[in-house]
């Protein structure tokens, strides 16, 4: 215990004596949480539609007005021919073409089916497909209004998608928990790694290794100190998530913090294992990047696990981030509690304990 106290104080003095690191600690969650969700927005808005209205009736005008009122579309141009609209699409001035056939109003009145053509530019596939989807749902909505109930013959079927827990399909609500995880990965994983490898590069670790300091005192002085910093950065991120984006209004503060702490302990231990196997800062940072990329891209932080290939879905069980992501999203969006998430908590803790044991074992004072 004795040495631990002195090593811990040493970490504090080193960190706060550095003019750069405390600033990073505050700016990192601040910028990540405030700027990225606004910039990296995957919501579809402002889809540009080129209209080819061959009917030029009251009804076609109503339909066009309805589309522009929806708020998702900008009517970029009105063309006389489909070819003209294609031209606009080709030049990149429009994302979607909608062609209203001649005699639509007449056909509808007679109860005949009408086909409206929608062509979407799928180069930006998300915009194309989601925009096309929105458009067709507006059209079918419109046709239903026209036909009244019961639906007249030939009116297209209406599909009303229902999104639960994130009713407005706000991309930010999906993104913000992910960024909170990124904050922990960066502060909890990279900071201790950099600190140990710097000791190796400067040679100070040798002065420790030649002393009777116990391995675990040295390791835990890092894990605990950087764990506390991680909790601080996470708190900044969480406050922003809560007050700026309205996240976790369903409570669950305890679940969030307990899981964050376990995950921090895991990340710190993981960083230490990496630093035990690297001699230079460059080496350790590259190794960390490799694993962090796998952690982030394969555990459902940015893309849902359920839409992965089956084999890679199994792989995600080996990634502790998967459990943390699960917990965080479930608590933030659904208001889940410990009882609902016991499997994730157990798995996350098991990873944290195991990796720290490996960190202590692989740290060699004597070569």
């Amino acid at each position, binding site marked *: 215990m*004795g*040495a631990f*106290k*002195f*090593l811990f*104080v*040493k970490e504090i*003095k*080193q960190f706060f*004596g*550095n003019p750069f690191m405390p600033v990073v600690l505050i700016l990192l969650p601040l910028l990540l949480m405030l700027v990225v969700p606004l910039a990296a927005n995957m919501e579809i808005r402002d889809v540009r539609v080129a209209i080819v209205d061959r009917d030029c009736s009251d009804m076609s005008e109503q339909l066009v007005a309805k589309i522009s009122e929806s708020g998702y579309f900008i009517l970029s141009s009105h063309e006389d021919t489909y070819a003209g609209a294609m031209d606009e699409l080709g030049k990149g001035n429009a994302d979607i073409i909608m062609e209203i056939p001649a005699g639509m109003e007449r056909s509808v009145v007679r109860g005949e089916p009408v086909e409206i053509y929608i062509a979407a530019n799928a180069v930006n596939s998300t915009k194309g497909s989601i925009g096309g989807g929105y458009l067709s749902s507006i059209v079918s909505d419109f046709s239903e209004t026209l036909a009244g109930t019961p639906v007249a013959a030939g009116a297209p079927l209406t599909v009303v998608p229902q999104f639960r827990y994130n009713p407005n399909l706000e991309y930010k609500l999906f993104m913000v928990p992910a960024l909170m995880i990124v904050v922990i990965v960066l502060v909890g994983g990279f900071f201790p790694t950099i600190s140990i490898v710097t000791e190796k590069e*400067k*040679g*100070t670790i*040798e*002065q*420790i*290794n*030649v*002393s*009777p*300091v116990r391995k675990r005192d040295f390791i835990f002085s890092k894990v605990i100190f950087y764990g506390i910093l991680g909790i601080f950065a996470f708190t900044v991120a969480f406050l922003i998530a809560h007050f700026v984006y309205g996240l976790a209004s369903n409570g669950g503060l305890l679940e969030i913090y307990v899981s964050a702490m376990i995950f921090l302990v895991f990340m710190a231990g993981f960083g230490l294992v990496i630093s035990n196997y690297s001699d230079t800062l460059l080496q350790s940072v590259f190794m960390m990047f490799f694993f962090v990329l796998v952690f982030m891209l394969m555990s459902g932080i940015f893309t849902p696990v359920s839409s992965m290939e089956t084999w890679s879905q199994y792989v995600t069980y080996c990634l502790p981030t998967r459990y943390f992501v699960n917990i965080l999203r479930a608590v933030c969006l659904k208001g889940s509690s410990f009882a609902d998430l016991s499997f994730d908590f157990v798995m996350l803790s098991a990873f944290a304990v195991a990796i720290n044991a490996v960190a202590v074992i692989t740290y060699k*004072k*004597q*070569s």
Partner: protein
Amino acid sequence: MEKSGYVIEVEHLTKRFGNFTAVDDISFDVRRGEIFGFLGANGAGKTTAMRMLTGLSFPTSGKGRVAGFDIWTQSELIKKHIGYMSQKFALYGDLTVNDNMELFAGIYGVPKAEARSRIDLLLDRLSLMPEKNSPVKDLPQGWKQKLAFSVAIIHRPEIVFLDEPTGGVDPAARRQFWELIYEAVDEGITAFVTTHYMDEAEYCNRISMMVDGRIDALDSPHALKEKYGASSVAEVFDILARGAERSE
């Protein structure tokens, strides 16, 4: 705890890296309270041998006891009884003089009040009192070395290992540094010093000369000079080093 008057006893110590034999079957003893000079050219194996004695690396074969403890099985006990100053400055440059001293006094378990008085004594002796709160990295090289030495003996070890402690400083600073070593030895600490400055060898009670991983000569500077008919330790070294196969 030593039955004998020896604080270091080494028999047939060998360290190989792959098929390179860095330390080749060396045997020697160091007496309590002496200054033992461990001489050799760069690459002769001095640092490797010292790292085995200080519990930083395991030997490939051979036996050794330091401060009465076995280098194979009791390295953590050895570490309690030795001080070590590495060739490369290894204190925390971003911490102050005082912080470094408190840290190392603390991790060696020096009681708090005792630590305070020892630190003040050392600061005073090194005339570092005014620099007490400046970061160590801002000190000139000669002062850094004196500080590193003081930190290495802050817990009053039985033996202090010094790996080329005076590299890169002027002769005056080196002389001052040796005065510190003498003061420590007067307090009963045994000094084990590697160096390639042959003039410094004259300050030692006994010296060993390492060539190509082997110890080719071991005696007092005076006896060695007589044996080889040389006027200085440097000349003795030249005679021995002529047979060396390893170059820098």
